[in-house]
Structure formats: C-alpha cells, structure tokens
C-alpha cells in the first residue's frame, strides 16, 4: 500500500468544471443552484451531470441565491450532503443565511467564484465578495488554479465535516482567471475519493422524526456568547485538523498542501503575501528576479479562515520587508483585509509591512505591477498605509460629472 501508484485521469478542465467534478466525486446528493456570472458554467455542469445520471442526486433550479443556501441547509440538516455555488452579489444575497449555516454548524462546502461587488457593475474578479463574508463563520480557502479547486473541495468536505470542526467552507476561486481557464487537472478515480470522503453523517444537529429536536430557536444572552465561542473554538480546531487532512490527502493522491505555501522566503529581503490566481504570477516574477540575484520571495495564503498565524510567522521570521497584496479595497480601513491580518500577525518595529491594493474589478495583476511592488519594497519607497499600486494617473477624474456645467470631465 505504501508506494501504491495513484491512479489519476489527466483531464483538461477549467475551475468551474473542476469544482463540479469534485462535488460529483464527493457524492453530493442535493444541489440547489442559481446561475450567476462567472459561476454559471458550474451551475450548468452540475445540471448536466445529474441529467446524465453521473450524479445520483437531485438538482433544483432555485429562484435566488438566498433560497439556494436556505435549501441546502434544510437538505443537509436531514442528514445528506448538499451543495450550492455562487459568486459576487449572489454571495452577498446569501449573507443573512450564511450565518445560519455556520451557527447551526452545517458543514456545507460551497465554491465561490470571486467577482467584484456592485457598484459600479463589474463581471470580473476581485475578492470583495468573499472578504465581505470573512467573519460569517465560514472557513475560507483560496485556490490558485483548477487543480487546487478540485483538491481543496475534496479536502474541504473532510475538514468541514470533522466532528471537531463542523463549519461550512467557501472554496474561493478567482472569477475567469481560474473559473474559465482550461488547465491540466489530475482527476482521481471515484473509488479513491470514496475512500477519502466517507458517506455523510450528521454529527450534531439533525432533522429526524426518530430523534426530534428543534433547531435554531431564540437563544438568550445567557447562552448566546458561549455558542459563538464554540464556533471560534471550531476555527482553532480546524488549524489542527487541516494539516491532518492535507497529510492524508498527500498519502492518497500525492499532492501536498499547507495552510500557506512559501517560496524563496528563507534569505529574502522582500516577500509578497498574496492569495488566489495572482500567486502564480508572483512566483514567476520571483523566479525571474532571483535570476538577477534579487532576493525576493512569496507567501501564498491558502487558508484565510482560520488565519494561519503560526505558519506565517514561521515562514517570515527572517524577512524584514513584507508587501501584502489585497484584491479588495478595504474601504475606510487602514489597509485591505489581508493586510490587517498580516500586520496583526507580524507587526513589530523590526519589520516593514506594506499593504498594496491591486487587481480590482478584473484588472490584471501583471508581472510589471508585481515587479513594481518588489521594487518599492526593496527601496522602501512608499508613503501610505494602503498603496493603490495599479491606479491610473487620472483616477479622480474618471466618470466625474460636473453638475453645474452639466458635462463630464472625461
């Protein structure tokens, strides 16, 4: 068994298809989905899989994301694995009900295809949708590519459903960059996945006429705090369980994961901390700069919730200058949300921690932008808590309308 070769099929999938494939292999038996760009191909793929009986389950075309997540909670509370997926304003519409899933400790695994929130309307990627839900009691993990989407979903079921965790999990993938780019993906055999993900079993609350209980009634101040605390403890427990599941995953499928992934950090003079699809580009730039003997590194945050404090401190212990790229604006805040987390973790007088906001509403985070960030970091050339690194020069004039003159400045 020890050296048994892992049987995988090499397939060409985009992130949406990889997510549908993973949900199928996890044998999700109730799917309630509402289509939204850029998640739509995922919604369609699941429907096709059910139609072709590749999935033994029921697919429901609900009338909103709000009903989608409600439906899935209801279904999973009866003791089956249920699923949905969403993006952007769809996730925002779910907001109220996300808290029901996490508060009732229903371990739903939900792909989130990251897309900017309105206004103004955008169809394209940034992380504000998921970041707005960062305190909703859901685990959050960010995939860099389609392979990670598949793997993190498979691991997601194991982590979320662990009896010491019992938290729902969002598997975030960047809209279009990951959701729509076709990549080579190693897809394991169903029999291997069945061994890795056992049949679903409700471990706490259940709607069962044989074991009647009333779930989610009014709770007094006398118990409310403790129940929230239990959720917080579950996140701490997740920090223990995630590496165990990742180890088991590596043994079963051969691919290694961590809470974070660090690259060339040991002797680095400057390191970028980032999440999602931009990580690949940052890594590429690191390789290029290293060829010129410029000592830079990168840390990719895979798990944002729970936040991997220990791993990050360890990875960056010798690094003096750290740039954090947020793909969301953190409006009104000192820095973007990832910037705040990293600063809380590492902040002391010995380190320079600089926050950069980049790639909003689908703007590419290019090699040039990343080189510019490294250049700034190495020269310590920045002056703001939050540096909007990819702004156009005429930022304050775009779409500005002069009421009195009745004409646009553009």
């Amino acid at each position, binding site marked *: 068994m020890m050296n048994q070769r892992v049987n995988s099929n090499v397939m060409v999938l985009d992130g949406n298809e990889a997510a549908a494939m993973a949900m199928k292999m996890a044998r999700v*038996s*109730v799917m*309630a989905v509402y289509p939204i760009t850029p998640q739509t191909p995922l919604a369609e793929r699941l429907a096709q899989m059910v139609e072709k009986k590749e999935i033994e*389950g*029921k697919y*429901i*075309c*609900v*009338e*909103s994301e*709000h*009903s*989608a997540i*409600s*439906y*899935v*909670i*209801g*279904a*999973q*509370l*009866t*003791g*089956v694995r*249920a699923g949905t997926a969403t993006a952007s304003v769809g996730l925002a519409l779910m907001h*109220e*009900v996300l808290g*029901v899933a996490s508060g009732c400790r229903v371990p739903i695994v939900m792909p989130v295809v990251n897309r900017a929130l309105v206004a103004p309307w955008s169809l394209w990627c940034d992380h504000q949708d998921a970041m707005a839900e960062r305190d909703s009691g859901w685990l959050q993990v960010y995939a860099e590519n389609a392979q990670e989407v598949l793997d993190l979903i498979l691991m997601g079921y194991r982590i979320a459903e662990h009896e010491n965790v019992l938290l729902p999990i969002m598997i975030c993938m960047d809209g279009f960059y990951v959701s729509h780019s076709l990549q080579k993906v190693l897809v394991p055999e169903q029999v291997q996945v069945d061994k890795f993900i056992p049949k679903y079993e409700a471990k706490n609350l*259940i*709607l*069962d*006429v044989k*074991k*009647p*209980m*009333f*779930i*989610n*009634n*009014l*709770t*007094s101040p*006398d*118990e409310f705090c403790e129940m929230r605390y239990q959720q917080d403890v579950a996140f701490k427990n997740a920090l223990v369980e995630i590496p165990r599941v990742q180890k088991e995953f590596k043994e079963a499928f051969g691919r290694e994961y961590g809470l974070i992934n660090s690259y060339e950090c040991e002797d680095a003079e400057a390191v970028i901390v980032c999440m999602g699809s931009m990580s690949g580009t940052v890594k590429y730039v690191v390789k290029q700069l290293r060829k010129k003997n410029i000592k830079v590194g990168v840390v990719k945050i895979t798990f944002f919730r729970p936040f991997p404090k220990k791993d990050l401190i360890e990875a960056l212990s010798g690094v003096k200058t750290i740039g954090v790229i947020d793909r969301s604006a953190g409006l009104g805040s000192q820095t973007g949300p990832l910037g705040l987390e990293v600063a809380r973790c590492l902040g002391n007088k010995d380190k320079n921690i600089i926050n950069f906001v980049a790639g909003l509403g689908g703007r590419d985070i290019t090699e040039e932008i990343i080189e510019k960030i490294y250049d700034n970091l190495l020269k310590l050339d920045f002056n703001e808590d939050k540096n909007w690194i990819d702004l156009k020069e005429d930022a304050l004039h775009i779409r500005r309308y002069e009421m009195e003159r009745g004409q646009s400045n553009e």
Partner: protein
Amino acid sequence: MNNNLKHNIVAQGVSTCAGCGLDIAIRRVLNVLGEETIIVIPPGCAALFSGYGNCTAMKIPGFQGNLENTAAYAAGIRSGLEAQGKNNINVVGFAGDGATVDIGLQSLSGVLERGEKVIYVCYDNEAYMNTGNQRSGSTPLNATTKTTPGSKLVPKKNMLEIVMAHHIPYVASASIGYIKDLERKVQKAKDVQGPSYIHIHTPCPTGWGFEPHLTVEIARKAVLSGMWELFEVIDGNKVSTMQVTNSVTPEEYMCEQRRFK
C-alpha cells in the same frame, strides 16, 4: 386546549397572548399531520412554539428559519428526505402573513412553481403581530396598525389568488372558527402529490382590539359576513366550503374591533 386531539405534539402553556388565534391553528394543523412531520417556523408569533433556549413546545423536529425563506428551507428538507427514501414524512412551513405575503413571497413562489411537495400554512393575523402590530400586505383596508396610525389606505393583498396562479394541486382558505373544515383541508393538503397551501384566518385580540374570549366568534363573523371566504381549489377547481348566510354584516364584524375605529 388539547382536548379531542389525536396527537399530543404541542406542549400546553405556550406564552401566546390570551385568546390567540394562531395557537388554535398550529395545534389543529399538527393534530392532522401527526408525529411524522418536520416543521419550519420563521421568527414571528409562531416562533413562541419553537421555544426559547433549551425549551421547545414541539415534540416533532423543527427548524426556525429566517423571516423570508420558510418555503426554501422546507423544500430543502423535503429533498434531503427524498434523497434518503424517507417519503412518508410531512414537511410543513408554518408562517405568518408578513413572512408569507410580504418578505417570503419569492421563496414561496419558487417552491410552488417547482412543484415541490411542501405543505405551506399561512396563519393570517393581518399584521406583524409579534413585533407589536405593524401593517403587512395582508392588513385589510382601513385597519389601523402602529405603522398605519391613520388607517391602511390600500386593500389586503389577495394571496390566495397569487398562489392559485401557480396552478398547484391544492389551495384552501380556512378559519380557526371552523375547525372541522380546517382539519379536513389539512388532511387533503397532506395527501396531495405536490405543493399545497392553506391560508388560515387567525384573529388576534391583541392587535385587532377585541376581548380575548371573542376570538372564535370574530373568526366566525368574518366568514358569515363574507369578509373571509372559505373555499378550496383542487387542481384548479374552486369550490366554496361554507356558504355566506349574510346573517352577519361586515359592519357587525368590524365594529367589534378597535382597529377599524
């Protein structure tokens, strides 16, 4: 209160107001549905039966949802049960008028359109009563509430016609003034294949302003005066289940309630 009940599912001594109409409705509905039932209740007056802390009034499994998604939760529960081959369990959504005709309309419409087998019961006390009497889409014309202190200037939304427009197999109106009629309708809703909807008129002494001992009498007067029609619609065919005798005038029905003064 629990006299003549087949199933002892709901605890006595629930802290509804004296003379509560909904209290009668929930006991009678569950008396027909029995122990093999899962109930979804949104926050509202009926949530008093969900209970508080580690106490509940229910001896059946239940879930308190949000105000606007009772039908979606219920349909999800139905699908979860179906996936396990548990097809003989009733799933009932039990929501007030606000949670049905206002904020819950979309989620209910979705479930009805998709034909999912959920029994949806709306208890209609004609305003947001649990929060202290604010108008809903189901508040009748000219009724005063705390958010229509002058009086409501537009008529009550015809929820039953909205439901009927979804062409579901069973739709009925009912009243806590006519228990046998109500229980017979719940039985039909239970037996039908596909979604069913029962809209129960449940007078509220606290909000409407009448003496608590008059609840059933007021409910009957609503029907006898033609202010609340009792009927059922089976596969699109509407049949009255109580003839209006005009033995009571609408004025007599309304004059006993302070909300119309």
